């Protein structure tokens, strides 16, 4: 068994209590530990990516209990990619946060590490109930991070966020209960083996469970009609936290990809293709809603939040179609949209703290400190988010358009993506010209927000994320084979089931022979 697989969960789980118990009074030490842990996570993720790209999914049986009796972690190409993306985003966001934002409330670093633990666990687990537990871990940490720094409006948005997610958790448990009641198992591979054999009499219960799960994951992924919580939450969260939350919506997309692709996908008897009919229209409406919201936004934070909703719609179109080509294109776009959203949220923070009394509201006002550099960064990030050449947003949308060309819904998807890209361009152009261009003609100068002390490190963080976008564009050709192999692995359901249900048993047998 490859013990490296569990380290992305263990490392933050060990660092977080140490940050609370041992170094809570020493900001410098806490920053050092937090950054060191995140750098290690990044190294681990790179190592696991190399391991995963060697071939078959790898199984880690906790406590050496053979699946389906024990809980398993499964490392395959998709989870390795998501781990690397999380660690990369987290590192830049953390660099931004240690530039002043982390001392505006308590326990930022501990919560940050717990959040990473939850996200990594959700990407690695191969068990449905364990997925629920890791969802709760990442949610509890996110409640704390969301209200970091306080303020009346932020706290009220936080309570709303908690209430929505608690209802979501209840639905998750009901869905898990239904699925367990029908199949008698919660191991994903075992479920994939048992779902085709569910008798017709139990299909109604099973499919209700599957659709409830879709609803829960859709809340996380901010799909219409359950996207309403996102703009209020993300626009009011502190900038580094909102940037980290860019990966949280992807956790929802990942869960749909994993659970509904594997368990309720092709060849699963009556439950096959259960969610496809719902998912594609939902994705298209999400895309349209999000990008229309970009046009209507009254603050920069709202604008970026709606852009995140729109990009989730784009991510979910390939997931709904679930073919080899579309999945590869979708994964490319998923990585891009996470980095772009992260960079944009960090920029919102930089703008807001430089406009004393105005924050990130989209009103014409005098110029503010370093507006030239911020404008240049915003221009790049907005180009990427709207999907204009030459950045990765353009490449990603092009790949998706090309992949869906021969499908039935091609006309709908093409229209939707092209029109919404245009809306996004208008929206971001309006935002950018209001904040940066028109301000140049104004008299006077805006002061910094009280307590704002961000320096060069914030710009390094934003620059790092933008460099990641540039790299992702430049390396589009090189990463395509990996993404296509990932898509192939996702479609090879039999291979996944065989690997998970058989490998640990073989290991035990070999050990037994060795002892004789």
């Amino acid at each position, binding site marked *: 068994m490859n013990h490296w697989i569990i380290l992305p969960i263990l490392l933050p789980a060990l660092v977080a209590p140490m940050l609370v118990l041992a170094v809570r009074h020493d900001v410098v030490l806490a920053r050092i530990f937090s950054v060191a842990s995140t750098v290690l996570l990044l190294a681990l993720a790179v190592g696991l990516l190399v391991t995963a790209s060697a071939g078959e999914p790898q199984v880690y049986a906790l406590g050496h209990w053979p699946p389906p009796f024990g809980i398993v972690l499964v490392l395959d190409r998709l989870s390795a990619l998501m781990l690397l993306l999380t660690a990369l985003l987290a590192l830049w966001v953390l660099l931004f946060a240690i530039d002043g934002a982390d001392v*505006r409330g308590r326990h930022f670093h501990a919560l940050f590490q717990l959040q990473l633990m939850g996200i990594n666990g959700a990407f690695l687990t191969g068990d449905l*109930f364990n997925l629920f*537990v890791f969802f*709760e871990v990442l949610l*509890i940490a996110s*409640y704390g991070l969301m*209200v970091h*720094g*306080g*303020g*009346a*409006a*932020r*706290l*009220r*948005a*936080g*309570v*709303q966020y*908690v*209430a929505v997610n*608690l*209802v979501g*958790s*209840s639905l998750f*448990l*009901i869905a*898990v*209960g*239904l699925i*367990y*009641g029908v199949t008698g198992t919660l191991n994903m591979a075992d479920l994939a083996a048992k779902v085709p054999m569910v008798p017709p009499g139990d299909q109604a219960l099973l499919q209700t469970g599957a659709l409830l799960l879709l609803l829960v994951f859709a809340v996380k992924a901010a799909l219409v009609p359950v996207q309403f919580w996102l*703009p*209020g939450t993300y*626009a*009011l969260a*502190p900038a580094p936290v909102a940037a980290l939350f860019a990966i949280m919506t992807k956790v929802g997309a990942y869960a749909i990809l994993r659970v509904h692709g594997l368990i309720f996908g092709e060849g699963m008897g009556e439950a096959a293709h259960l969610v496809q009919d719902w998912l594609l229209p939902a994705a298209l409406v999400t895309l349209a809603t999000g990008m229309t919201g970009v046009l209507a936004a*009254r*603050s920069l934070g*709202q604008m970026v939040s709606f852009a995140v909703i729109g990009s989730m719609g784009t991510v979910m179109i390939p997931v709904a179609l679930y073919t080899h080509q579309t999945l590869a294109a979708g994964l490319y776009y998923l990585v891009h949209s996470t980095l772009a959203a992260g960079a944009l949220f960090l920029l919102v923070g930089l703008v*807001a*703290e430089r406009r004393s009394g105005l*924050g*990130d*509201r989209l009103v014409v006002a005098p110029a503010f400190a370093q507006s030239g550099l911020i404008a240049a960064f915003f221009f790049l990030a907005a180009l990427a988010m709207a999907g204009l050449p030459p950045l990765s947003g353009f490449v990603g949308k092009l790949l998706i358009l090309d992949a869906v060309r021969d499908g039935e819904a091609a006309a709908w998807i093409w229209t939707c993506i092209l029109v919404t890209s245009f809306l996004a361009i208008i929206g971001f152009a309006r935002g950018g010209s209001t904040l940066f261009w028109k301000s140049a003609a104004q008299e006077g100068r805006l002061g910094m*927000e009280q*307590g704002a002390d961000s320096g060069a490190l914030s710009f390094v963080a934003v620059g790092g994320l933008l460099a990641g976008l540039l790299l992702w564009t430049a390396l589009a050709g090189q990463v395509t084979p990996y993404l296509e192999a990932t898509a192939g692995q996702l479609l090879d359901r039999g291979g996944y089931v065989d690997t998970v249900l058989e490998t640990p048993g073989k290991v035990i047998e070999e050990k037994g022979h060795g002892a004789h």
Partner: protein
Amino acid sequence: MELLVASAVGIMTAAGVYLVLRARTFPVVLGLALMTYAVNVFLFAMGRLTVNLPPVLTADAAGYTDPLPQALVLTAIVISFGMTAVVVVMALRAYLESDTDHVDLAPSEPVEKADRP
């Protein structure tokens, strides 16, 4: 027994949903608590309703009760208990800071009036 458990789950869920939709912090907290109770009973029932049976399969036992949902319920209880505590604390802070216990962001207070630190 089936009718009793099923109606208990149904009534608790209905009451929970109603209270959550009241959109004031105190009813919302109570509603969320009721919903988690309903979910716990529901999860428990998914291991099938049996009386006086051991949780393990032995040679002389007439049957067994499924222990796994009971373990799941235990985890769910712990998590929902912690969550209730979190939401109570956050609701209290939000009430003290903003002098209103509405959970929804009322339209009279536009989002952009947020005081960003």
